[in-house]
């Protein structure tokens, strides 16, 4: 019993220490956003790898997401005689929840793990230490650019995922019935309001920020062993995914408070 108590206290201690370290790291990274020098070229390079290289994955996933969601929902809507409400329902599902969360999880899997592994490898090979010794600020050059890139690019990727997801839904509907693209988008946007779009967009900014931040933190704080590279990559994915759901939960609560739904 005493050992269990010690175990729980130790776990809580480690958890809160980790949270504290992440918060401190967050503060340092945010400070770097506003401190010179601003590494624009590195930001472009990271943006290219995070945005352009992830787009095909996001596009395919988004299309399949809209297609499958429509095919799965249609029989139920047909049973209720509410087939005409299907575009609106799919649009709300994709834009408000599924698009941002699925995109963020994919980015967590691809980008956060990539950043964690890359920075972990740099840490193991002492490149980060070398940068510090040579006067370059690794937090500014390596971390801040990646975090800023994910913060900007993840919402952009979500826009693509939403749009392609709606096209997937349109394709699924056209497999079963004839509906024009104009009518589909008219019905889809009839059900939407700013209360659906704005909170969803704001939370994707937080998703992007934490995907980059957690990946960077896990890589930046990796141990010296080579196995730390894999561990930091794995830990980055798990933690980022968990944080995405926590942010989503908080976003829903705040949206409910503001918009009343």
């Amino acid at each position: 019993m005493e050992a269990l108590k010690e175990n729980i206290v130790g776990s809580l201690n480690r958890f809160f220490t980790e949270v504290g370290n992440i918060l401190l790291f967050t503060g340092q990274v945010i400070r770097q956003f506003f401190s010179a020098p601003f590494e624009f070229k590195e930001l472009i390079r990271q943006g290219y790898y995070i945005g352009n290289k992830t787009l095909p994955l996001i596009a395919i996933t988004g299309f399949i997401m809209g297609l499958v969601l429509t095919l799965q929902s249609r029989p139920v809507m047909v049973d209720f005689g509410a087939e005409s409400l299907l575009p609106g329902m799919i649009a709300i599902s994709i834009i408000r929840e599924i698009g941002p969360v699925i995109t963020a999880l994919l980015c967590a899997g691809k980008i956060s793990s990539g950043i964690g592994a890359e920075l972990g490898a740099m840490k193991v090979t002492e490149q980060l230490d070398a940068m510090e010794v040579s006067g370059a600020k690794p937090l500014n050059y390596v971390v801040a650019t990646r975090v800023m890139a994910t913060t900007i690019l993840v919402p952009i990727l979500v826009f693509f995922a939403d749009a392609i997801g709606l096209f997937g839904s349109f394709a699924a509907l056209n497999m079963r019935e004839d509906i024009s693209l104009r009518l589909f988008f008219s019905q889809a946007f009839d059900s939407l309001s700013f209360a659906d779009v704005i909170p969803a967009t704001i939370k994707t900014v937080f998703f992007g920020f934490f995907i980059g931040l957690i990946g960077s933190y896990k890589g930046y704080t990796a141990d010296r062993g080579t196995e730390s590279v894999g561990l930091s990559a794995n830990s980055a994915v798990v933690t980022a995914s968990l944080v995405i759901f926590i942010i989503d939960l908080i976003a829903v609560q705040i949206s409910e408070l503001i918009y009343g739904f």
Partner: protein
Amino acid sequence: MSKIKSRPLKLGMLVSIGLLLFVMAVYYLGSKQNLFSSTFTITSHFSDVKGLVEGNKVRYSGISVGTVSNVTIISDSTILVEMLVNEKVREFIRKDSRVEIGREGLMGSKMVIIHPGSPEAGSVEDQGQLASINPVDVQEMVQEARKIIDDSRMVSKALLEMSEKINNGDGDLARLINDNSITTKLSKAGDELLAFTENAKEISTKVNRGEGDLGRLVNDTAITYELTFTLNRLRQMSARADSVTMEMLLFSKELNEGNGVLNRLVYDEQMAQHLDTTVIKAGRGIEEVARTAETIRESWILNLFSGRNKKDKQAD
């Protein structure tokens, strides 16, 4: 090296297209809620808004023309609903238009429906107020439906009783359905009607062939000519008769109103008396003349010179 140079271009395209998608979505949503077009406000009072909230659509004749901008409770039985409506449709919304809270389909969200008014009332003004129609409650609909079901049950019961009576043979309708003799009579009547039709057909055939008086009358053109001639003669005679009648009319008028002999003869009593007296006197005069002539004939002087007595004696 060129690949490195193309990175900013590709990234720029990605970000631009992504932002464009977002802006398009925002603009489309904004245009749906009339954020980018000029609007005016209409208000209406309801006793119950049935779940209407800000952002619900406003429709005029089935077209989405605006959104609900505010729903406020102003007293314990009155709710003020404010609507932002597109300025372009203001000319079609009349002051006597009526506002109702409806639903998009059976399961859709609530919306405000503006029913058209009369052109004489004129267009509604900004901040104008429209009369409301209380929304139909689903519970009321269920109660109405229950009444209809009860009525239908009574009707079906009455129909059941009627069908039982028909099956049992009660009443004229039942006899019509169950009694075979009526059918037989109807069949016989049908046969007779058929025979009559056959006869009529035969007659018409004969008439067409020109057989019989009627056939000749119908087919022979000489008879038609004669009839036409006779009719013309009759017409002429009629015209003459009219002329004679007119003459007679004039004559009778002259007789009645004129001063001629005939008029006096008919209407003057004094003249009639004179005429009577004259006739009497003439009669007497004739008698006197006859008597005088007899006397002369019997006179011996004449007989002497005429030898008449000799002839009379010889004749005897």
